[in-house]
């Protein structure tokens, strides 16, 4: 790799030293906190979301450490009573789940990568509603503050027990699902604050969805039809549909739950004439589609990376595009599969099971198209590609085990066991987190204008892959043998599973810290990134890295994002450049294949 000290434009020409870029466009803390620039808002999201990712990860490590032995491992070490130790464990898995789901998994890809990349991918200067975009960041911060408050109360209450009498219980022990009637009448923890946090975060998510839909509809570049959108945008569009249609139902559910806890209206409480299963219907009507809010953007990232690093046009563009929409719509029809043992009618169970199987079809279409894209491609095993290939493998396992769970008889055996924990971690962490990390490495040069360290990136990808499988693969075994989830203790014969899993969690944590170190080091010491290090043709690569304040010096025109021929490798900058004679975004010389229309 040649060390080129200078940043270059899309033609490989050095940029002037005073070239405008969004990071240095204006200075001062207010220029960030009051910014309307989608890229800066994306960076602010990144800082906040990674912080909460770290917090959620600490909880994960604590609960895995607790499970090292069948006894109360941490509790004994710090001198808690057995009862306190088990309550502590309940709070650890609840806070881990709630923080990870609401504050990391759901917003991470849309709010960070989507915010920064989406407007550039359509060749726009910003999202359709920049102020709304900033408002949703503030809503995210307010929602996050509620969770920090829950946490702070928990910590302070355990240090000074007298405080609990003053301001009520702290922490959260309901499970991230807030199931009633435990959450409405029994739990002594700060349920209301957590519920309001999730409520506010929901609005942040809704506003992001509204913004993305309007941007994709209204702000596409000239000549950029729907079928010239990069597949990341199709995925974000499908995600936005779910965000706007499902999240309001969570909002009303949480409002009812808060009213139940504050006023005692009893809608979900059997002791007061209510129906707790109604809560489960409401909750999963949101939270199952929310699974696709988490994973659909990941599909989009993977489509970009796979095509880019196979140096090959994506295979089956329209199939991938429409399968995203199909997953978004089918995702609304399968919530009942979380309630197979909640007393649903047998007919409902059979229908939900069938619909659950149908989601496998569009998911498999995607996997086959990605693999076919790689077939006979000139594959570059850079860090993003390693994460993407890890994604395909882990998502396949996670998806197929989802079919086991969708089968009624099997589900009754493995319901609420570690099998289900392993399944959703393969989908949430193995898929979403791998795609997020891959996407962060992939767009890191664009976002910061610096190249990350490739060697340590690859090592981290390998460590994370090993750590992840060590942690969660064994949980399929434990679950199928009957280890129930959410238990602080277990039978001694499960100890080997738990110890393996805990060691895996430590390895995973080391891998993630290596990623963080790589990013921080590269921000400071990384070599300047070329405008297009990967040779991808979507529009965000048609501008400098990092982009100027208004993204493009000249409004780009749409073209097939997966047609890479006009980009030529220039080894002096280790990146791809356009021929200045041929304007950016010009039509490809070959006759356009059908998918370009």
């Amino acid at each position, binding site marked *: 790799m040649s060390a080129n000290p200078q940043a270059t434009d899309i033609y490989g020409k050095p940029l002037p030293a005073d070239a405008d870029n969004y990071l240095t466009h*204006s200075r*001062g803390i*207010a*220029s960030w906190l*009051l*910014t*309307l*620039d989608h890229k800066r808002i994306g960076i602010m999201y990144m800082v906040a979301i990674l912080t909460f990712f770290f917090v959620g990860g600490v909880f994960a490590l604590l609960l895995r450490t607790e499970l090292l032995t069948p006894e109360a491992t941490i509790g004994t070490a710090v001198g808690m009573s057995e009862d306190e130790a088990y309550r502590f464990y309940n709070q650890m898995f609840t806070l881990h789940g709630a923080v990870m789901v609401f504050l990391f998994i759901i917003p991470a890809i849309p709010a960070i990568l989507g915010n920064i990349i989406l*407007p550039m991918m359509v060749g*726009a*200067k*910003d*999202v*359709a*509603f*920049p102020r*709304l975009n900033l408002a949703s960041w503030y809503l995210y911060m307010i929602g996050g503050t509620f969770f920090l408050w829950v946490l702070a109360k928990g910590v302070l209450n355990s240090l000074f027990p007298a405080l609990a009498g003053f301001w009520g219980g702290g922490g959260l022990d309901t499970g991230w699902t807030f199931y009633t*009637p*435990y959450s409405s*009448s*029994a739990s002594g923890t700060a349920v209301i604050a957590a519920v309001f946090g999730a409520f506010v975060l929901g609005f942040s998510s*809704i506003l992001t*969805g*509204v913004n993305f*839909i*309007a941007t994709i*509809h*209204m*702000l596409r570049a000239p000549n950029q039809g729907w079928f010239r959108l990069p597949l990341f945008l199709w995925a974000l569009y499908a995600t936005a549909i779910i965000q*706007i*249609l*499902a*999240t*309001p*139902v969570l*909002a*009303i*559910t949480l*409002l*009812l739950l808060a*009213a139940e806890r*504050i*006023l*005692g*209206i*009893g*809608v979900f409480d*059997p*002791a*007061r*004439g209510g*129906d*707790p*299963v*109604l809560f489960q219907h*409401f909750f999963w009507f949101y939270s199952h589609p929310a699974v696709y809010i988490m994973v659909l953007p990941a599909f989009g990232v993977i489509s970009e990376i796979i095509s880019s690093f196979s140096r090959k046009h994506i295979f089956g563009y329209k199939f991938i595009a429409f399968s995203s929409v199909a997953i978004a719509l089918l995702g609304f029809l399968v919530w009942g599969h979380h309630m197979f043992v*909640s*007393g649903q*009618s047998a007919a409902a169970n059979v229908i939900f099971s069938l619909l659950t199987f149908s989601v496998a079809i569009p998911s498999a279409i995607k996997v086959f198209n990605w693999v076919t894209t790689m077939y006979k491609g000139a594959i570059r095993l850079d860090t993003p590609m390693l994460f993407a290939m890890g994604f395909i493998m882990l998502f396949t396992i996670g998806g197929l085990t989802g079919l086991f769970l969708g089968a009624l008889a099997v589900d009754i055996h493995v319901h609420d066991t570690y099998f289900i924990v392993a399944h959703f971690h393969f989908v949430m962490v193995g898929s979403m987190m791998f795609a997020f990390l891959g996407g962060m490495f992939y767009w890191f040069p664009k976002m910061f204008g610096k190249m990350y360290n490739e060697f340590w990136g690859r090592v981290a990808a390998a460590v994370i892959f090993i750590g992840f499988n060590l942690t969660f693969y064994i949980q399929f075994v434990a679950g199928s043998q009957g280890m129930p989830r959410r238990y602080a203790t277990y039978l001694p014969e499960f100890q080997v599973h738990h110890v393996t899993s805990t060691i895996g969690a430590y390895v995973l944590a080391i891998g993630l810290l290596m990623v963080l170190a790589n990013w921080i080091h590269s921000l400071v010491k990384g070599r300047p990134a070329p405008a297009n290090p990967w040779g991808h043709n979507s529009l965000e690569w048609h501008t400098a890295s990092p982009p100027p304040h*208004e993204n493009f010096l000249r409004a780009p025109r749409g073209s097939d994002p997966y047609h890479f021929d006009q980009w030529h490798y220039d080894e002096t900058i280790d990146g791809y450049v356009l021929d200045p004679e041929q304007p950016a975004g010009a039509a490809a010389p070959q006759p356009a294949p059908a998918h370009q229309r």
Partner: protein
Amino acid sequence: MQDPETGTQPTQASQHHDAGAHGQGGDAHAHDHAPHLAHHFDTPTQQFESGKLGMWVFLATEILMFGGLFAAYGMYRGNHPEIYLYAHHYLDTTLGAINTIILLASSFTVAWGVRAAQKGQRKLLVTLLLLTLLGGFGFMGIKAIEYTSKFTHDLWPGSANMFYNPTLNPMFADANDPRAAQLEAIRHLEEYYGIRGGHGGGGHGGGHAGAIEQPRITLTDDADPGDAEAASGQGEAPGPSPAVERSMINPPAVGAGGLSEEALGEAPSHVAPHMPAAAAGATLTYEDLPPTEQSRAHMFFQIYYMMTGLHAVHVLVGLGLISWITVRSFRGAFGPAYYTPVDLVGLYWHLVDLIWIFLFPLLYLIH
């Protein structure tokens, strides 16, 4: 407000930081395009269409949010129709109807206001928006009267509701026999609302209701956890903890069964004799309800308060928005070239109206 974004670039859309400050036409910033065009849009039409699309998408989220409440309403009404049949008598249909007319009229004035804005008729626009505001405040005023009359009769939201399980109800906490105290209070309330005739009236066999009371107390006690069979899984427990541990899932047959099946299956000797009277059009009283439904009667009010309360919050937000565009239109901010806020606030107001159009018959007009 400082605008860090604009800095040295005069084409930046600084006007969006302070909506109230412009519209005067004499804004200081020198634009080479339409004064309201944000920097990231190419044309005013594109900006208008984007705003409109965003608003419609947002309204879809609102419908889904209320959709949850409508679903809860539908489920409880499907499973417990008698509660709705009985408890809706406590709502004032006349006031509800007046409010419906007021909201419909205000929807008309705001729609006309959009047209006035498009045609640049400033005075007409301000007048119509003021009329809309009047309608909105009128609606909230009547709503306040309705709520107040409920509160004065202890029909609160939450556990302070008159019909709430008396052993959990703070209202009857001091009574020796909370159940009897509750029945007595409800009887007075029914007389007040005309659901039951004066003393000795009403054809329910027995001038002094104490004669009827006694078996009902027995029936309610049947629902104790210790005797769960008699309640067939949907009875009420006196306290939260035992009930939490039992499965409260209705068996399908009972859930869909409604009054007559439960009445016949559970307590034919007590409830069945009242049925012909109810079917023949006589007003249902609390004592006509099967015991399992009596303890759920408060649920009508909980759903009523949640639905109308959330709607009222939306009305208040709408009033704020309309006040804001009224001030702006008074200053002459809108005209044929730019009327987006009037259009979008109008759309929102129509949605608020539309939701009430569903709430009114669902809650007030039950037969």
